[in-house]
Structures are given as structure tokens and as C-alpha cells.
């Protein structure tokens, strides 16, 4: 233990390596890159617990009220949900390509791929909005405007309202994450267009990708839980 860890940082003199995006408190871009990716992983861990709370509550009620849950899921249009899932998976692909393009200095390809991600993400949110509109139209928005009554078994109605609280909260939080992601995409598109990224420095696009994939994965869980669990 008494040996001194040989540190590459000492060998590269500071002035030698002044990349414009190297922040003053890091020794080199490698350290900066590692710090950013670790930061995003830790953030994702935090997000998992954030969604975890509501997933746990969902699981508890689902075991308590299986029939209401099944009836609630019946009100979701699984076809629209499946199309949206495909759109989102497509956006993950374009996002991954954007990271690769940034890393290999393909400037315009990075921009195009980020734009494609943005468009696919917007389609997803738009479709979600249409679904919301439809639910509200059918009196399925919980609270005062909840006018829906289950035809065959009115006793299920309160449970369906509970299900819809979950539906709106879970998909709403997910959509909020998408909207934040869209804002970030716009910013990184601008930076990519400006030519900031290259093999040495592409960490921002990479961690944007991590975030985007995480948000997609949340949906991969939401879709079966909310649409398919008859």
C-alpha cells in the first residue's frame, strides 16, 4: 500500500493538453469523461428509486384489486401503445447512432441523428397527448371530472379510478422526462452543429444517451403494466 499509484496525470503537463472543453478542475479529458458518465449512472440510480416508489405502490394495489386493474387496462388501446413503443425503441436506436457519430467526428450525422431522436420522441409525446385527450373525453380523468361508470359491474368503478390515477401519474412523469430530454436534445443538436464533439470529447452526447435509454426502459415496463395486464 505504501507504493505511490503512478498517475498518468503527472506525465502530461498542463499546457500540453488544453482542450477547450476541459474544465479547470479536471486533470485531463479522461478524468472528466469518467466523472460525467459515473455522474449519469448515479443519477439513473436515483431515477430508478423515484419510479420505484410508484411501481411498488402499483404492485400493491394490483394484488389488492386485480379485477379493477384488468378492467382499467381494457380501456387502454394496446395497438396505439404498441406503435408508440416501437417509435420509442426507434428513437433509442437513433440516439445510439448519434453517440457513435459524435465519437467518430461525423458532425452532420450527429445532428441528423439527434434530430431524428427528437422527432421520434415528439411523436411519442404527441400520441400520448392524443390518448390523454381520449381518456378525458370518456370521463376517465380522476377527480371531479371522473364520470365514467363500469357498465357490467359498477362496484369496480372506484378501483378503475384508482387505476387511472396510476395511469396518469406514471405516464405523466414519464412524459415529463421525455420533454426534459427533448430540451436537452435541442441543446446538444446546437452543440453538435457547432462542432464541439469528436473522439476526445463526446461525453455529453454519451450521457444524454444514457438518460434517453433509461427513459425508454421505463416505458418498456409501463407499457405491459398499464396496457396489457388484463
Amino acid at each position: 500500500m505504501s507504493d505511490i499509484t503512478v498517475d498518468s496525470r503527472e506525465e502530461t503537463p498542463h499546457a500540453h493538453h488544453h482542450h477547450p472543453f476541459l474544465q479547470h478542475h479536471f486533470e485531463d479529458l479522461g478524468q472528466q469523461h469518467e466523472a460525467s458518465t459515473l455522474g449519469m449512472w448515479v443519477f439513473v440510480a436515483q431515477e430508478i428509486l423515484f419510479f420505484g416508489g410508484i411501481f411498488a405502490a402499483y404492485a400493491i394495489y394490483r394484488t389488492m384489486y386485480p379485477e379493477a386493474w384488468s378492467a382499467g387496462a381494457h380501456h387502454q388501446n394496446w395497438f396505439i401503445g404498441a406503435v408508440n413503443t416501437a417509435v420509442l425503441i426507434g428513437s433509442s436506436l437513433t440516439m445510439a447512432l448519434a453517440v457513435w457519430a459524435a465519437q467518430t467526428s461525423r458532425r452532420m450525422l450527429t445532428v441528423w441523428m439527434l434530430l431524428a431522436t427528437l422527432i421520434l420522441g415528439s411523436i411519442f409525446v404527441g400520441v400520448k397527448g392524443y390518448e390523454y385527450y381520449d381518456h378525458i373525453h370518456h370521463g376517465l380523468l380522476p377527480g371531479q371530472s371522473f364520470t365514467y361508470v363500469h357498465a357490467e359491474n359498477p362496484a369496480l368503478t372506484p378501483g378503475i379510478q384508482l387505476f387511472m390515477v396510476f395511469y396518469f401519474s406514471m405516464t405523466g412523469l414519464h412524459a415529463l422526462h421525455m420533454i426534459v430530454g427533448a430540451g436537452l436534445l435541442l441543446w446538444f443538436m446546437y452543440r453538435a452543429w457547432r462542432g464541439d464533439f469528436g473522439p476526445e470529447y463526446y461525453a455529453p452526447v454519451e450521457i444524454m444517451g444514457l438518460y434517453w435509454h433509461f427513459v425508454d426502459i421505463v416505458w418498456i415496463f409501463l407499457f405491459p403494466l398499464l396496457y396489457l395486464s388484463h
Partner: protein
Amino acid sequence: MTSQTLHDVRFSEPPRTRNYLNVDYGVFSWLLTRDHKRIGILYLISVTTMFFVGGFFAFMMRLELLTPEGDLLTSDTYNKFFTLHGIVMIFFFLIPAIPGALGNFILPIMLGAKDLAFPRINLLSWYLYTIGAIFGVYVIVTGGVDTGWTFYTPFSTQYSNTKVFATTLGAFITGFSSILTGLNFIVTTHRMRAPGLTWFRLPLFVWSMYATSVIIMLATPVLAITLVLLMVERTLGVGIFDPTIGGDPVLYQHLFWFYSHPAVYIMILPAMAVISECVAAFTRKRVFGYTFVAYSSLAIAFLSFLVWAHHLFVAGISLYSAMIFSFASMLVAVPSAIKIFNWTATMYHASVSWQTPMLYVMGFIGLFTIGGVTGLFLGALGIDVHVHDTYFVVSHFHYIMVGGTVMAYLAGIHYWWPKITGRMYPEWWARLSALLVFVGFNLTFFPQFIVGYVGMPRRYHAYAPEFQVLNVLSTAGATVLAVGYLLPMIYLIWSLFYGRKAGSNPWGAVGLEWATTSPPPLENFHETPVVTWEAYDYPAFLKAMRETQHV
């Protein structure tokens, strides 16, 4: 050791250049700063302000409780005051206090880093804290909130007509401020350690802060989602905790305590971080059982997630799960006890110097032990059924949060004050205030154990006349305590102008933070330090110090 050829930063007097305080004086150089040291100061000022806001409510409650009748404050006002007291003290003072003020300032320096990994996120975290606190102040001036700091449903969602939404939104936003601080600490500890600074050479402060950050990252988001669901329910009028549509209010309590029990360790682990540093510095010894103390922090972080339902023993959970949680609660006491025993063992046969920080450390050890042992009483199922919701509980958690964490916070403020400001505080006054805090604290809270045990419930503005003597003692103690807390405000500010200049290492301590000037320069060190020594390596340090002074 192979280190002889290497230059050891601890023994060369660093050159005096501009420091982080005098590089720039403009208001924006503070409000837009990305320097972890300045952000630490911003936190210091904000949490101190909130401490006195929370203290005001506490003092008003103690005045009300001087007499058995509810004469000074109506029951409604009293409800609001204990709620605001709890919210301000927990969310806006105790949770951010040590990590935000001392951790921000000291942690990067201890690691030999120039800053935290994400300086802008660090500034953002202070702004989020401030926005949250502004919500808190807004609630205070526009009529308050009366749910208790725990926001239990369905009262908070369906019945209370006070400012619940704004308060929970404030708590939610502040939660993200601690998340960002925790994230920064974790990444910085992993990625920014100076060359040679291996994990087992880290000061125990860092280990404890790391464990705190892990809890922050894994527990706070659960509070966040819980508060979101609460706000949704309050807005829509129905929600997942609403019994009228089949929701379960006890689920709210589970989710809330899944955060809030770990949160009590978010409050106490940073205190333990400070205590380890002070014990080593004032006994001039390596902390006894370093590895045990380091790992016990991680053990606490882990176990703290397994005991939350001990707050729900009388909430209608099954006897079976109550027994399991009761048993698990006993386990958490083990790593805490390991720390207490190791600090005590460090002091054994040491020549302890009784400067102010060390007096606070002694206070901490005694009071935290009482708080922890009464925690075991409460964790024992049968006793808890008897004393739940009495002053016994109030006393228990104040022994830990005030007797423990606030004491440690004051120890840390005094210990690092020379580093932060470059000035020494007046020792005599500081010792006096440490004494007042200790006496005042015990006088305030010890009677509450008794009065709670014999049956005085918490959260009422009036009480049975036979409890009056103990309540008068308690209010008298609170007065002494208030003086004890106000004194440091005066003499610390005084010391900024008239205090003796502190050299870079006034305590003769080993940490890296003592190897740089006081106050530290903008990037903390004049050259990146290379660490070749073990943590708290006092024998070698003292020997080398004598030798360099010979030359």
C-alpha cells in the same frame, strides 16, 4: 517507504497568494460562484438563518408549554408552529447543514481535488435549496401549515385547509438539492482523489459523507415521488392514498418512512464524519479501528433501509411484520455502537487537548448514546406501544438530532473555522457556549423523557397540571440553550474582524486541508498533493514535523 524522494506538501509552508475570499468581492462573484468553498459559505449562511427561524417556533412552543392551559397560542397556531418547526429544522437546516456547509467546503480539499466534480450542479443545488426555502418562508408568512412535518394522509390531502401544496412542493425541490449534493460527493470521491490517496487512506469524514450520499441518492427520490403523489391527490381530489376509492393511507406512511428513517441517518452520519476528524485531531492519534469505523458507515447506510416500519408499530401493520422490523431496528444500533466504542478507545491513554471542538465531541458522545439507547427502547415493540406519540419520542429524537448532530455541527464549525476564515475564534467564549449548550440541552430534554414516560402526549398546546414542573424545567433549559446558540453568532462574527490570524495548521492536525493556507487559495492547493501516508498517521507526522522544524 518509497516516499522519501517525493515532496510532502504537509511540511512546506505554502506560498501566500490570493485566497478564495479576496479574489473578488462583488455580489455576483458570490451568487454565481462555482467554487465549492464559496458555495459552502452560501450554505452556511442559509442554514444558519433557517436554524434561527426554526428556533423561533421552538421557543414560542416552549413558552406556551410553561403553563398547562393553552393560553399563549391557540391550538391551531400551536399545530402550525410545531409543523413549521419540524419542517424548517429537518428539511431546511439539519439535512443540508453539515453536507452543504462543511462537506462542500472540506470534502474536495480532503481529497486533494480542485473542486467537486460538477461545480455548476453544486451551485444549482444551492439555488434549489434556496427556492425550496423560499416556499417555506412563503408558507410561513401566508398562514402556515398544520399537518406535522410528516404530512400524513388523509389529513394532508383531504382535510387540512392550510398551505400543504406549497410546503410539499418546497420540500420536494429541496430534496433535489440534497440529491445533487449527494451525486457530486459520490462522483468526486470516486474520481477526484489525489494521486496516492487510496480508499483506505481517506479520512473517515469522507467515508461517512460517502455513506450519507448513498442514502441521499437512494432514499430521497422515494420521498420525492411520495410527495408528488400527495400533491396529485390534493390537486385532483382523489388519489392513491384516498380510502374512498380504495387507497390506503398507511401506504403513505410506509413510503414516507422508507425515506425518513434513512433520512435520520442522512442527519447523523455527517455528524459522525465530523466527530471522527475531531477525535483524531485532539487526541493526536489514529482513530482506533479505522476500518471498522469506515465500514460501519456503509453498514449503517445499508441497514437504515430495513427498519422504516418501526414508525408504524401502532398504525395497524401486522404483528408479524412489526416483530421483524423491531428486530431489524436492534441491528442498526450495532454499527453506531461500533463508532462510539472506537472513538472512546481512541481517547484511552491519549493526551487529549480540550479545545472547544473536543468539548462538543464529548457532548456528542454522551448525548448520542442516550439518544441511541432510547431508540432501542422505542424499537422494542412493547415499549413503543406504551410511549408512542408521547414526549418520550420527542426527547429521543432531539437527543440524537440536536444533542448529536447539532453538537457535531458546532464542533465542526469551530474546528474548521480557522481554515474557512483564516481567523481563530475566541477560545474562552467558545468553551462557555459549549458548556451552555450542553447544560441547556439536558435541562430542556431530559425532563421530556420523564414526562413522556408518565404519559404526556406530544403535539398538544395544553396538558394536565401534574406535568407542569417538568415542563417549566424544560422551558428554562430552552432559554439557556438559546443563549448558548446565540453566543457563537456573536463571537464568530467578531472573530472575522478581530480574531487572531490562524496559520495554515493551528491544531497541528494531519488532514490535507491543513496542508494548504488558511483561507485556502482558489484551487485549494498550489500544487496537486501526492499522498504517501496513511490516514491519521500521527506518530510519523509529529516526528517529521519536529525534524522539519529543526532544519
